[in-house]
C-alpha cells in the first residue's frame, strides 16, 4: 500500500525526468518549451511537498490564537507561487522568441536553426562556414 506522499514525490520526480529529458532530447523548439513547462511543474510540486504536512490544516487562523491546530508551512507555497509566476513569464518570452525565429528562419528544428545561426555568424565575421569536421586552419603569422 503506497501512501499519497510517496506517490506525489514519485510524480514530481517523474515530471522532472520527463521534462529534463524532453529538453535535452527534442529537436523541435516548441517541444523543448513544453518540456521546460513540465520540468518546472515537477520542481514546483517538489517544493510544495518539501513543506507539506498531511495531518495539518491550511495556514489560516480561523479560531482563537490559543488553540491553533498544526498548520502547513506556508513559506514553500508562497515561494512556489513566485516560481510559477516567473516560469510563466519566461515561457511567454520564449514563445515570442520562437515566433521571431520562425519568421526569420522559417523553421523550428533546432539543428537547422543552429546551422543558420552559425552561417550568419560566419557571414558577420567574414569567415568560411564553420563545420565541426573541418580542422582549424593553421596559417598563422
Amino acid at each position, binding site marked *: 500500500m503506497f501512501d499519497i506522499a510517496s506517490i506525489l514525490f514519485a510524480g514530481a520526480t517523474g515530471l522532472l525526468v520527463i521534462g529534463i529529458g524532453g529538453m535535452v532530447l527534442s529537436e523541435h523548439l516548441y517541444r523543448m518549451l513544453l518540456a521546460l513547462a513540465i520540468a*518546472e511543474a515537477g*520542481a514546483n510540486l*517538489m517544493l510544495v511537498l518539501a513543506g507539506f504536512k498531511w495531518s495539518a490544516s491550511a495556514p489560516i487562523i480561523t479560531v482563537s490564537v490559543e488553540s491553533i491546530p498544526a498548520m502547513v508551512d506556508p513559506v514553500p507555497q508562497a515561494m512556489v507561487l513566485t516560481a510559477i509566476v516567473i516560469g510563466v513569464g519566461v515561457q511567454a518570452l520564449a514563445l515570442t522568441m520562437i515566433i521571431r525565429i520562425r519568421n526569420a528562419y522559417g523553421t523550428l528544428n533546432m539543428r537547422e536553426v543552429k546551422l543558420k545561426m552559425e552561417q550568419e555568424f560566419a557571414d558577420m565575421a567574414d569567415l568560411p562556414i564553420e563545420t565541426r569536421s573541418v580542422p582549424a586552419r593553421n596559417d598563422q*603569422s
Partner: protein
Amino acid sequence: MKELIVLTFAVPLLMAFLLPTISRVSFTLSKLIAPLVLLALAIMVVCIWNFHTETFVLHIGNFIGPQGIVFYVDRLALLFAFAIFAMTLLMWPWYFEKDESSDTRTRKLSLTLLLVAASAGMSLSGDIFNLYVFYELLAVASYGLIAAGNKKPAGNSYAAAFRYLMISALGSVFALLGIALIYFQTGTLNLAHLSEMKELLNNPAGLIAFVFILLGFGVKAELFPVNSWVPEAYMASSKRVAGLLAGLVSKLAVLVIIKALVLIYPQDEARQLLLFLGIAGVIVGEFSAMKAQDMTRMLSWSSIAQLGLVFIAFSIPGKAGMLAGLAVALHHLISKPAMFLIAERWGGSLQNLKGRAQSSPIMAALLILFALSMVGIPPLPGFWVKFLLLSGLSAQQAWLAIAVVLIMTVVETNYLYRVISSLYSRDEQQSVTSRHRTADTFSALILAGVLIFVSVQVQTVGQALDEIAQDAVDVKSYIDLSLGGGS
C-alpha cells in the same frame, strides 16, 4: 544612512519601468536621466562605504531573525554594488542605430536598468530564495539584451537568446530543486540560519542540493558543463552587452555560489567538485579560444577559461582561497569588458586584423596592456592575481591544478600573441578600417587606468582586498549579525 542601501536596487527597478513613460514625453530626457541615476547611486555606495566601516544587516520591515527578508551589507557586497554601477555606466548603450525607433532604444535602456537592479539585489541578498528571484530577473533582462542583437535584432540573435534561455531555464529548474531539497532538510532558506544548521546538510542529499545549486547558478557563471551558450550569445549581442555579461553578471553568479560554499558547505567534497569543474572549464576554454578564428569567439572562450580560474581559486579553503578568488574575479571584471570594447570594431575574422594597429594605435596598445595582464606579466595586476592563485594552490599541494594553470597560461599567451602580432604586421592590401567610437575608446581607457592604478598601488589594494576577504570568510559574525538584533 543604512536604509539607503535599499535604493541600490529599488531605484533602478523603478526607473526601468518609468523609462517608457518618460520617453513618451521626451526621449532625450530618458536617455539622460538613466545614467545620472546610476551615477548618483554609485556615489551613494561610496558614501555608505565611507560612513559605515563595519558590516551591517538590514531587516526589511523589521522582521528580525530568519523569517524576514535580510540584506547583508559587508565590504564585499558594497564593492560589488559599486562595481555594478561603475561598470554599467562604462558599458552603457550610448549608441543607437539610425533606423531604430525611440521605443526600441528605450527598451534597451530599460533592460539595462533591470539588469542593474537585479545585480544589485543579488550582491546584497542574504536569503537563497531572494537570490533566486533576483537571478531570474537578471536572466530575463539578459535574454532581452541578447535578443536585441548586435546592430539590430536578427534571426541569429533570437536563436542565440532562445538557446541561452533554454539552458538558463533548465538551470533555474535545477536551482529550484536544490532549494527544495535544502528546505526539505532544514526548513529555512536564510543563509545565516542555514549556516547554523549546516550539519543537517552534511549528507548525500545535502551535497546533491549543492550540485543542483551549482549547476543552476553556474549557467550565468559560465561554469563548465553549462556554458555552451556563451560564444553564441556574445557573437549575437552587441559587444557592450557581451562585456557586461562576461564581466559583471558572471561574477554575481559566482558570488552566490561562493556564499553557499563558505556559509553552508565547508565540506571537502564541495570544494573538490568546484576544483574539478574549474579545471575542466580552463582546459576547454583555453583550447577552444586557441582554435577560434574570430575575435569575439576567442574572447568568449577565454572568458570561460578565466571563470574556470575563478572557480579553481575559490576551491582553496579559508581566507587564502577567498583572497585569490576575489583577485582573479575582479581582475577579470576589469579586463574582459575592456577587451570586448576593443573587439567592437575588430569583431571579424582574425585574418582581417592585419595591420589594424596603424589605423587605431591607442586601441592596439590597450589590447597589449590587457593581454599582458591576462597572461600575468610582473608589474601588472594579472601577475599578482596568478601569484596569489598559485601560492594558494601550492599551500594545498594541488599540483594538478597548478600544472593546469601554468600550461594553460602558455596556451593563452599563444593565442593572444597571435592576435597582437597580426595587428602589427604589415599588410599591403589595407582593408576598410572603421574607427573605434569615442565612447568605446574612453571606457577602455578608464579601465586601463584602473589596471595601471592597481599595479602602482598594489600594496594598498592588496591590503584592502585582504581585509574584505577576511570579513567574507567570517561565518560567525555573519550568523550573529543576520540573526541578532541587527546592529
